[in-house]
C-alpha cells in the first residue's frame, strides 16, 4: 500500500471514530462542542503512559480511553444540568479549559508540544475503527440503543414511558467521551507528535458537522459523513482553501435541501425495502 493511500485511510479511520464520539451525545439530544477536549485528554494520557512509564501503546490507548470515560462521567453531572444551547456552550468552555490546562502542563511539554515515541500503525487503527463501529452497531440493537433513539425522537414522551432520560444522557455522554479519548490516543501514537493547540474548538465543530451532514437518525450517517469529508478534500486536491470553500458550500446546500442529513431512516427503508430488517442491508 502506498504511503499516501495509507495516510488517507488512517485519517479516515480516526475521523470515523471521532464522528461516533460526537454522534452518541447528539443522539441523546446534546450538542457536544468539547469533543476535541476529550480527544486531547486521551491523546496526552496515552502519550504520557508510553513516554514516562514505558507502557506499550495499545494498553496505554485502552487505559487512556477508560480514563477519558471517567472524566466524561465526572463532568457529565454538572454539564447535563444545562440544556440546549447552554449545554453546547458548557461543553465548548470545558474543551477550552482542557486545552488551556494542557498548555500549562510542563510535564507534557506545555506549549511546545509533546513528541510521542510509541507508534501505532495503520492496521491497528483500522481494527480499532471497525471495532468502534461494531460496538456502536451492537449498542444500537440493544435496549439501550432503542431507548436513546426514543429520547432523541421525543424526550418528553420517552420520560413518560418510564425511561430514565437522565441516566441515558449521562451514559451517552460518557461513552462518547471514551470514544473521543480513543481517537485521541490513536492520533497521538500514529502522528508521533501532539500539541494542545491542535485540539481547538474548530476541530470539535468539524467533527460535529461530519455527523450532522451524514445524518443522526441512523448509525450509518456518521460513517458516511466522516468518509465523504475525509475523502472529498483528497479528490479536490489543488488548493487547500478552495476545498474548504466547497466544503462550506456543500454544508449550506445540504442544510437547505436535506436538513436531516444525508442518511435517514426513510432513505434506508426506501433503498432496502426488499430486505428485513432494513438496517442490515447497508453493512
Amino acid at each position, binding site marked *: 500500500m502506498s504511503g499516501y493511500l495509507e495516510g488517507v485511510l488512517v485519517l479516515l479511520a480516526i475521523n470515523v471514530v471521532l464522528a461516533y464520539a460526537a454522534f452518541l451525545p447528539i443522539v441523546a439530544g446534546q450538542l457536544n462542542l468539547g469533543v476535541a477536549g476529550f480527544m486531547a485528554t486521551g491523546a496526552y494520557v496515552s502519550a504520557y503512559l508510553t513516554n514516562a512509564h514505558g507502557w506499550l501503546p495499545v494498553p496505554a490507548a485502552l487505559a487512556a480511553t477508560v480514563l477519558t470515560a471517567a472524566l466524561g462521567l465526572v463532568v457529565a453531572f454538572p454539564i447535563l444540568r444545562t440544556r440546549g444551547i447552554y449545554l453546547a456552550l458548557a461543553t465548548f468552555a470545558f474543551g477550552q479549559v482542557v486545552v488551556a490546562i494542557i498548555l500549562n502542563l510542563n510535564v507534557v511539554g506545555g506549549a511546545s508540544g509533546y513528541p510521542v515515541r510509541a507508534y501505532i500503525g495503520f492496521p491497528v487503527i483500522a481494527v480499532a475503527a471497525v471495532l468502534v463501529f461494531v460496538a456502536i452497531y451492537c449498542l444500537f440493537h440493544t435496549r439501550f440503543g432503542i431507548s436513546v433513539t426514543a429520547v432523541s425522537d421525543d424526550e418528553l414522551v420517552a420520560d413518560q414511558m418510564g425511561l430514565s432520560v437522565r441516566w441515558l444522557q449521562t451514559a451517552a455522554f460518557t461513552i462518547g467521551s471514551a470514544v473521543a479519548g480513543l481517537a485521541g490516543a490513536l492520533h497521538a501514537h500514529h502522528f508521533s507528535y501532539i500539541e494542545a493547540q491542535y485540539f481547538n*474548538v474548530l476541530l470539535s465543530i468539524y467533527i460535529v*458537522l461530519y455527523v*450532522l451532514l451524514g445524518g443522526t437518525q441512523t448509525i450509518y450517517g456518521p460513517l458516511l459523513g466522516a468518509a465523504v469529508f475525509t475523502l472529498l478534500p483528497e479528490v479536490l486536491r489543488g488548493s487547500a482553501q478552495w476545498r474548504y470553500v466547497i466544503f462550506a458550500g456543500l454544508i449550506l446546500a445540504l442544510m437547505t435541501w436535506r436538513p436531516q442529513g444525508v442518511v435517514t431512516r426513510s432513505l434506508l427503508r426506501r433503498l432496502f425495502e426488499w430486505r428485513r430488517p432494513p438496517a442490515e442491508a447497508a453493512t
Partner: protein
Amino acid sequence: MLAQQLVNGLMLGSVYALVAVAFTFTMGVLKFLNFSIPGIFMVAGMVTWAMLKGGISLLLAVPAALALGAVLSYAVERLTYPQMRGGDHFIPLVSSMAFLILFENLVLVAWGSDQQRLALPFQSVSARVGDIVIGVPQLIGLVIAVGVVWLLDLVLKRTRVGRGLRSIAEDAETATILGVSVGRVVPVVFLIGGVFTALAGVLFALNYQQASPFMGEEVALKGISAMVLGGMGNIWGAILGGLVIGVVETAAIHWFGARTVDIWVYGLLLAILFVRPTGLLTSSLGSGRA
C-alpha cells in the same frame, strides 16, 4: 499599576462587548447562536486593511466595511433562518458555522494566511491621566461601543421595529398572530448584528493595527463568554460581560502569565454555567428561554 491594568482590561473588553452585543441580540430575539459572527468580524477587519493599503481614505473604508458586514449578515439570514422553521433546532447553528468556514477560506484564497499590518494615516496616540496611559483609539472605540448600544436600546424601547423585535423575542408565534411581520423584522436583527460585528472588527483592526484571516475566532469565543456572563438577550449585560472578560484576561496575564488566560476566562464561563445553568443575568429582550 493596578489602575493601569484595569484600564487596559476595559479597553480590551470594549471589543469583546461589541461582539457580545451582536451575539446576544440574535440569541435574544431568535434563540440562534450565530457562528458566522467571527467571520463577519474578520472580513470587516481584513477589508479595512485592504482598502487602506489600496490608498482609500479611512473615512471611506470604515463605512464600506460596515456596509459589507450588513450585506454579509443579510446573506447569512437568507440562507439560515427560513430553514429553521419546521426543522431541527441546530440547523441555523450548523449553517452559520459553514459561513464561518466559507468566509475564512475565501479570505485565505484572496489574501493568504499572513497577519497583515495596518498602516494608519495618523500616529497612534495615547493620553496620560496621572500615571495611567490611555490609548486614544481604544477610548474612542469604547465610547462608540457604549454609544451604539445606547442607540440600539432606544430603538428597541421606542420604535415600532423595536416593539416588533421584543415581541418576537418574547414569543414568535403570538407575535405573528398579533400582526407582527416576523419575515420583515428578522432581517433587521441580522442587519443590526452585522453592522455591530463589522464595527467591532474595524475597531479591533485599527486599535491593534493588525488583521488576519483568523482574527475573529479568539475574539468571538470571548464574546460568547461575555454574552453568557451578561445573560443571553441582555444587551447591557453583554457590555458588562465584555468588560469583565477583558479585565479578567488582563488580570490573568498580569498575575499568572499569558498562557493561563483561557483557563480563567473559560473556567469562569464553565463555573457560571454549572452554578446557574441558564446564565447569570436574565434577558432584557424576552423571557430568556433558549
